[in-house]
């Protein structure tokens, strides 16, 4: 597994990959759009020895897993040539000194001075600032904002979305959820957010349920009621699973941490960070290592099981944990690592302002966008 980096300098606060674009939020509240394929094509002119590789790594990473590509890789001459290019790729990455065709999203303006979180879901862009929670419907082909709304007045520090629902975490001003945001079930656009829980720093989906974190380590579980609907979106019709209601199932998930503490003889105050993906919890301790917890749930709580696995290699305070196609990305105060198949692979040595991964994306499952003080790193994980 190899790590390739592209650095785009600038004064950015956040960056995401979406529908062929790098979308970078600038410090002066603009949204800069960089087309990825023209960017890599321009880099091919400057760096002919990596012609093709840059597009494969950063613009069309999904091509690396196609049967067509695997067929080509069965040719030793092709495979050797590609691997040689990767071997000669600078460990610190390439820096982009000129971005071709960079544009700004016209009509984009958001209330507030402090950009706290961004989220893209089903072509809608959600933004949390100290002044509220906002959404923007954007036509990403014509690059036009067709509608923008303020959804909440509360300071929104974090947002998550899945199953047609969006969650806005507003700290002491609580957690709010918009259901059926795109009218897939009821032909409405779900403009009204509903109060879901008290106090929320962040949320993360656990399959169709939602874990609400009110601190770095304490969380509760909200059970998602689901329904399947046939919905048309972007001209295509498909069956979708919607979460139509969230209600408290477990006031506290501390029992998972207690189980971990018992099995590993940990003091409870050793727990530094808890996060989760759709299928697992991630727990970091101050001095006793990093763990995953897989919670095998059952209607009968007596039949539930917990699987704990310890992972070496994480040092420092964990800030966030993200899923990706290649494995779990762990961000600490001063570094990022990839955990994959038992290995801990360094991705970035330095402090990130924001780490974004795209595990549900087709093209960008193995790419991350890391905003740092002086620019954005695109980090591609290439496994040939």
């Amino acid at each position, binding site marked *: 597994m190899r790590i390739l980096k592209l650095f785009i300098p600038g004064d950015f*606060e956040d960056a995401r990959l979406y529908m062929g674009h790098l979308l970078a939020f600038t410090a002066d509240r603009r949204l800069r759009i960089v087309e990825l394929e023209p960017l890599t094509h321009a880099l091919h002119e400057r760096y002919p020895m990596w012609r093709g590789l840059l597009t494969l790594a950063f613009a069309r990473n999904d091509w690396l897993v196609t049967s067509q590509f695997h067929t080509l890789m069965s040719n030793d001459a092709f495979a050797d040539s590609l691997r040689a290019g990767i071997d000669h790729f600078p460990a610190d990455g390439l820096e982009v000194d000129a971005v071709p065709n960079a544009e700004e999203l016209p009509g984009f303006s958001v209330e507030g*001075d*402090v*950009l*706290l*979180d961004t989220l893209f879901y089903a072509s809608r862009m959600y933004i949390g600032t*100290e002044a509220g929670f906002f959404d923007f419907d954007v036509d990403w082909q014509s690059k036009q904002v067709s509608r923008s709304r303020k959804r909440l007045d509360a*300071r929104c*520090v*974090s947002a998550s979305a899945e199953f047609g629902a969006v969650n806005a975490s507003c*700290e*002491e001003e609580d957690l709010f959820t918009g259901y059926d945001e795109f009218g897939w079930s009821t032909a409405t656009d779900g403009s009204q957010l509903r109060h879901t829980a008290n*106090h929320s*720093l962040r949320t993360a989906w656990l399959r169709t349920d939602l874990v609400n*974190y*009110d*601190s*770095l380590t*304490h969380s509760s579980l909200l059970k998602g009621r689901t329904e399947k609907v046939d919905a048309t979106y972007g001209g295509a019709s498909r069956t979708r699973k919607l979460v139509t209601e969230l209600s408290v199932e477990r006031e506290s998930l501390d029992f998972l941490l207690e189980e971990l503490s018992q099995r590993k003889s940990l003091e409870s105050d050793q727990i*530094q960070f808890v996060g989760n993906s759709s299928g697992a919890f991630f727990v970091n301790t*101050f001095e006793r290592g990093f763990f995953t917890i897989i919670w095998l749930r059952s209607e009968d709580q007596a039949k539930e099981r917990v699987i704990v696995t310890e992972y070496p290699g994480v040092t*420092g*305070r964990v*800030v*966030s944990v993200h899923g990706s196609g290649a494995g779990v990305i762990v961000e600490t*105060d001063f570094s990022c690592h990839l955990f994959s198949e038992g290995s801990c692979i360094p991705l970035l040595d330095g*402090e990130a*302002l*924001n780490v974004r991964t795209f595990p549900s994306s087709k093209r960008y499952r193995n790419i991350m966008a890391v905003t740092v*003080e002086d620019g954005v790193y695109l980090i591609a994980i290439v496994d040939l």
Partner: protein
Amino acid sequence: MANSATGTAGPDGICFGPNGSGKVYVSMFVHRGGNPRKSQWLASVTPTTEYEVFCRADSQDWRDSAHNYWGVLDAEASSLGTRGERLAKFLRNEVETAAWHGYPVSPASGSAGDTPEDVLVESWISAGSVAVGRKIQRRRI
């Protein structure tokens, strides 16, 4: 900055000052091993350095609307506390002449009391005093 870098031991901690604005400061023993339930300063952050962090916060008027002062060690907000805390909070004094004290805090804890107000962090960002201001506002430090 600090006009008295040498402290004297008192019953609750090492006393410094008065500084340029007349404030007296105590580096409390409870935050240096005396009470493990309270946040603890790193050993490498000496009481004198702790006092300097306070004096900088005071001289720069890094004060919130409740009159607490907030400080950082440097522009990178290097660690101050044994649990990775990178900010310091100096609690508001009800009595003007009483000694000030402070301790390391982490906004990521989720406690509103451990987080400086946005407007104060914005002033740090504007002045270039802290490189990771947005991380503070996003509760990621």
